[in-house]
């Protein structure tokens, strides 16, 4: 191939040279080039090595279907493999290299794989590894481990950077009446028709210029400009460098906009790509058609490309891709380019595979009829072609011709991928030898060559018709076709019994023989064929090879193509970077993070934070020289000795209001709520329909029809949703309104013997929280010294005299600025989640770790809270026999037999005689108890504490610390009578 840049012609800007490097070599192209056109103009032919056999590969096309010029672009963290050189715009400083080869694509040691080709035939993986049962644990796995490294090295698709992606990506959304995909004649015409009719239109083009096929016809430039200007004037929104990669339900389309991939040094504030979700009323697919090759020996040699590709390189990029050109075609489509190449100065031989009527031979072109390419001659580049002519059902050699470029046109395949995403099954059109888009009940319409319409004027009419259909009008279809002489299908050319390498799917190195082998081995369905041979599973998704593969399979089965069927296309049409799908949801934004109103105050006062679900909460407040263990043990001990303050703002808070609020809570909670007096709080447990515990918390009666229900932090959202469901769909007659007020209140727990003293010091002059005014479980509205109005409830999670104090979120700091000096004055402390855990474990209070969606109210030892006098949610199904079984795992406390030992959360509890399997129970939480002076835990064990009264259990932790003998005790390990909190 002696490609060269012409002095004039094409759409490139010869006054703007663009420097780039290829495999370290400095080269120059022009503004308007793609990487492929610039490489071609520089005479580079071998651009890649094939997947399995490491065969040299060059440019095969000029578009998204490219299967040869697959390269790595960029350096360092921006290194991106598997870029199609045909789709990469050239920019100054672009650096690209060949991949899948060592030391380089021109001299690749891996090419010896070609000599061991039989190891890589279809089904090689299956036969070698799956064939050795049992695959999961036996022979096969070990062999696989051994071979995997070798195979991965030999068969690869380039390597990505291991560094974090330095670029940012955006998500964007849009709506429109009509989405038009593709800006060729049909797409422009569709967009114009719809926009002029007043519709809101989005026109999407994957190329960097509008016009599609018009871009490769210099004579049509004025027409192109007029159309584009008219579309703009009519108000359509136009997106270039944007691929519609998938269609989804209800008119949704996924688009990928490449914002800066063509810019040398983009502004850092601009995202590299945008992932658009467009919701369209109707969609017009003017996605074009792709020319397909023919399978023959060495049809993958650099210098073999589609006829259309030559047309693009000549007319759009001003590159004459060869000097001595052979063109092999089975349709009328290639005649135009033959004449254009001849006019540009090439010596052109046009070999038409058809016998019979063919178009007039363009001037300067030599034409032959009835011959097809049998073999490309040459190794790292085409040096000639051997032809074949028909001999009965087969072929026989018909002479050789030298050439440096072999163009092939085996027919055209409409791009039906997008409607196939929606389940529209493409159907085979015999006379056009292609799949045409299938029917769908959704408002999706095809136009132009995507609908098998070949001629430009018909495409314009087809686009307008599709737009009218998209607007709900009845219009006549433009019939597909348009060639004067019929296409004569030719999918493969080979001599009988030849087993030369002739490719169907270039990217995955699938040959015609592989397809026949799959058939021989009993694969009759196309879906199986695809998976066994991996045909159509590379990054091009079979854009070049699928139809040939089906044709060869049909031939082997003795069936017609429509009877073999086709596989369903899946999104994405072209590869989409994971970064674009992730958008801004990376690093710190990977998941939502909630902060309490006291977040900054906590940080200022030495909190070390931890993530608890979506919340960021204080973990412990270390003093000088303390680690986490010293800190939490000191904090827990201080609470029991003087007082501690803990941020509990993350608890769920739901206002339950209305005349039927009492009745509602009475149905939701297992215990009685109907008679809770105003000014009192009650601890409650709610079950799911199936009788399992959903959540627990306290509910405060603030007024006759006014309650505040608190939930655990973890279940706040779930409980709110549940209340709404019950009120809207099950009990619509109840007059109750529920409002989430979790974010409205900042809350702290003040716990310890000096809690009352500390709070009293912060109250407005006339306030009183003495035991008589605010007894255990009492609730009151209260005013602090600085006039802040809040709520106070005397409830205890720690087992100490304790209060929860809530003030409006905006007053959180002001509240703490009163409370904290008062607590410091009595040697109090701030305490975090770790000490909170210690205090509640000592008391055997349950939390999310225990209420894991598997336990009953009896399992947690609160069976007496289930009222026998009323029905409540879950009351029927909690009576299921399995849930009443005596020896169910029940909540217990756990002590090490040797009190100096410690054990870990997550350990299994086992019978000492059977430390195996799932054991008899499990440990949910552990802590060092400053009150008891040793490690304790809570968890579940069969039969509960009573069943293990005189029996030691083993806390088994086989993967971490080993086994510890433990004593099973009541979960109420500290102050079981609750003397302290009533004080």
């Amino acid at each position, binding site marked *: 191939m002696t490609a060269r840049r012409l002095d004039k012609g094409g759409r490139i800007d010869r006054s703007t040279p663009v420097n780039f490097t290829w495999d370290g070599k400095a080269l120059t192209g022009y503004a308007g080039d793609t990487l492929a056109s610039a490489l071609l103009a520089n005479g580079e032919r071998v651009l890649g090595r094939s997947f399995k056999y490491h065969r040299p590969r060059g440019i095969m096309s000029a578009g998204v279907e490219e299967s040869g010029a697959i390269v790595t672009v960029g350096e360092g963290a921006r290194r991106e493999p598997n870029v199609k050189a045909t789709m990469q715009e050239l920019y100054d400083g672009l650096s690209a290299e060949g991949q899948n080869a060592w030391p380089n694509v021109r001299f690749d040691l891996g090419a010896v794989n070609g000599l061991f080709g039989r190891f890589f035939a279809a089904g090689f993986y299956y036969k070698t590894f799956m064939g050795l049962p049992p695959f999961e644990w036996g022979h096969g796995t070990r062999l696989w481990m051994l071979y995997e490294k070798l195979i991965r090295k030999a068969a690869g698709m380039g390597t990505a950077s291991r560094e974090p992606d330095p670029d940012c990506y955006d998500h964007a959304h849009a709506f429109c009446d009509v989405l038009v995909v593709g800006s060729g004649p049909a797409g422009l015409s569709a967009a114009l028709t719809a926009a002029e009719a007043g519709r809101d239109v989005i026109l999407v083009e994957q190329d960097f210029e509008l016009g599609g096929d018009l871009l490769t016809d210099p004579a049509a430039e004025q027409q192109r400009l007029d159309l584009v200007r008219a579309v703009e004037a009519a108000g359509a929104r136009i997106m270039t460098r944007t691929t519609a990669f998938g269609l989804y*339900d*209800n008119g949704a389309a996924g688009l990928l906009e490449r914002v800066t991939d063509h810019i040398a040094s983009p502004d850092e504030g601009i995202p590299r790509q945008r992932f658009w979700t467009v919701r369209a009323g109707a969609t017009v697919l003017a996605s074009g058609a792709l020319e397909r090759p023919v399978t023959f020996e060495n049809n993958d040699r650099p210098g073999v490309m589609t006829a259309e590709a030559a047309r693009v390189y000549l007319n759009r990029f001003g590159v004459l891709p060869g000097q001595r050109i052979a063109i092999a075609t089975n349709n009328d489509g290639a005649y135009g380019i033959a004449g254009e190449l001849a006019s540009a100065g090439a010596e052109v031989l046009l070999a038409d595979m058809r016998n019979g009527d063919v178009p007039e031979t363009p001037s300067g072109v030599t034409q032959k009829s009835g011959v097809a390419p049998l073999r490309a001659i040459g190794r790292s580049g085409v040096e000639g072609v051997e032809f074949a002519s028909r001999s009965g059902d087969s072929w026989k050699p018909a002479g050789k011709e030298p050439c440096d470029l072999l163009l092939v046109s085996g027919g055209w395949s409409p791009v039906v991928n997008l409607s196939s995403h929606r*389940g529209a099954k493409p159907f085979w059109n015999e006379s056009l030898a292609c799949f045409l888009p299938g029917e769908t009940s959704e408002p999706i319409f095809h136009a132009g060559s995507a609908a098998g319409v070949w001629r430009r004027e018909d495409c314009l009419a087809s686009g307008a018709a599709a737009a009218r259909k998209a607007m709900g009008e009845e219009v006549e279809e433009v019939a597909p076709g348009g060639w004067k002489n019929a296409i004569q299908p030719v999918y493969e050319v080979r001599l009988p019994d030849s087993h030369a390498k002739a490719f169907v799917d270039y990217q995955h190195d699938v040959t015609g023989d592989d397809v026949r082998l799959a058939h021989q081995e009993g694969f009759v369905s196309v879906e199986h064929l695809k998976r066994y041979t991996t045909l159509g599973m590379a990054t091009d998704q079979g854009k070049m090879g699928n139809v040939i593969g089906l044709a060869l399979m049909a031939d082997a089965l003795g069936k017609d193509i429509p009877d073999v069927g086709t596989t369903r296309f899946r999104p994405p049409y072209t590869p989409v970077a994971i970064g674009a799908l992730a958008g801004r949801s990376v690093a710190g934004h990977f998941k939502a993070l909630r902060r309490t109103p006291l977040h900054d105050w906590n940080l200022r006062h030495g909190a070390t934070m931890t993530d608890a679900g979506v919340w960021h909460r204080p973990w412990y407040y270390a003093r000088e020289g303390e680690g986490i263990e010293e800190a939490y043990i000191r904090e827990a001990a201080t609470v029991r000795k003087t007082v501690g303050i803990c941020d509990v703002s993350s608890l769920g808070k739901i206002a339950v209001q209305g005349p039927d609020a009492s009745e509602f809570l009475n149905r939701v909670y297992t215990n009685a709520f109907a008679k809770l007096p105003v000014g009192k709080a009650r601890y409650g447990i709610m079950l799911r329909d199936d009788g399992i515990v959903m959540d627990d918390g306290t509910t405060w009666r603030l007024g006759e029809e006014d309650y505040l229900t608190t939930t655990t932090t973890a279940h706040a959202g779930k409980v709110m949703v549940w209340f*709404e*469901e019950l009120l809207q*769909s099950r009990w619509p007659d109840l007059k109750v309104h529920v409002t989430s007020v979790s974010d409205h209140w900042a809350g702290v727990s003040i716990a310890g013997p000096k809690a009352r003293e500390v709070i009293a010091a912060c109250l407005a002059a006339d306030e009183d929280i003495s035991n008589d005014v605010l007894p255990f479980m009492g609730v009151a509205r209260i005013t602090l010294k600085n006039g802040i109005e809040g709520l106070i409830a005397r409830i205890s999670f720690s087992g100490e005299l304790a209060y929860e104090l809530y003030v409006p979120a905006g007053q959180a700091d002001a509240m703490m600025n009163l409370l904290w000096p008062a607590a410091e004055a009595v040697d109090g402390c701030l305490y975090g989640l770790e000490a909170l855990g210690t205090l509640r474990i000592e008391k055997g209070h349950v939390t999310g770790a225990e209420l894991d969606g598997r336990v009953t109210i009896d399992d947690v030892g609160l069976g007496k809270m289930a009222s026998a006098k009323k029905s409540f949610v879950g*009351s*029927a199904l909690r009576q299921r026999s399995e849930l009443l079984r005596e020896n169910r795992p029940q909540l217990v406390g756990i002590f090490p037999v040797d009190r100096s030992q410690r054990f870990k959360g997550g350990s299994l509890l086992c019978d000492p005689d059977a430390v195996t399997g799932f054991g008899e129970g499990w440990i949910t939480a552990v802590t060092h108890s400053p009150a008891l002076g040793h490690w304790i835990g809570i968890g579940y064990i069969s039969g509960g504490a009573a069943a293990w009264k005189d029996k030691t259990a083993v806390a088994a932790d086989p993967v971490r610390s080993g086994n510890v003998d433990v004593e099973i005790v009541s979960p109420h390990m500290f102050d079981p009578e609750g003397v302290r909190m009533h004080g």
Partner: protein
Amino acid sequence: MIRIPCPFCGMRDHSEFTYGGDGSIEYPPLDASKEEWHDAVFLRDNICGVQFETWQHTHGCRMWLVVERDTMTHEILSVRPAHPGLASALANEQEADQ
């Protein structure tokens, strides 16, 4: 992506909603037998075709909706509020508009 026409908010992406469950279930009264409750909670048809399901517009109006959806095509045939009073009020309003 399914799009659901919320009777209160208009057409919205399904990511704004949370799927609930089978919308055809009539839950028995709380004092019904455990057998009745068993059937209501555990027995479900696996429908290939049109079914009623409940969705909540969690990131919108918070309303629970009964959605009639074809499980084969994701086509949504109807949407109404789960609250019967709201559903009939809405239907009356729509009738009045016509």
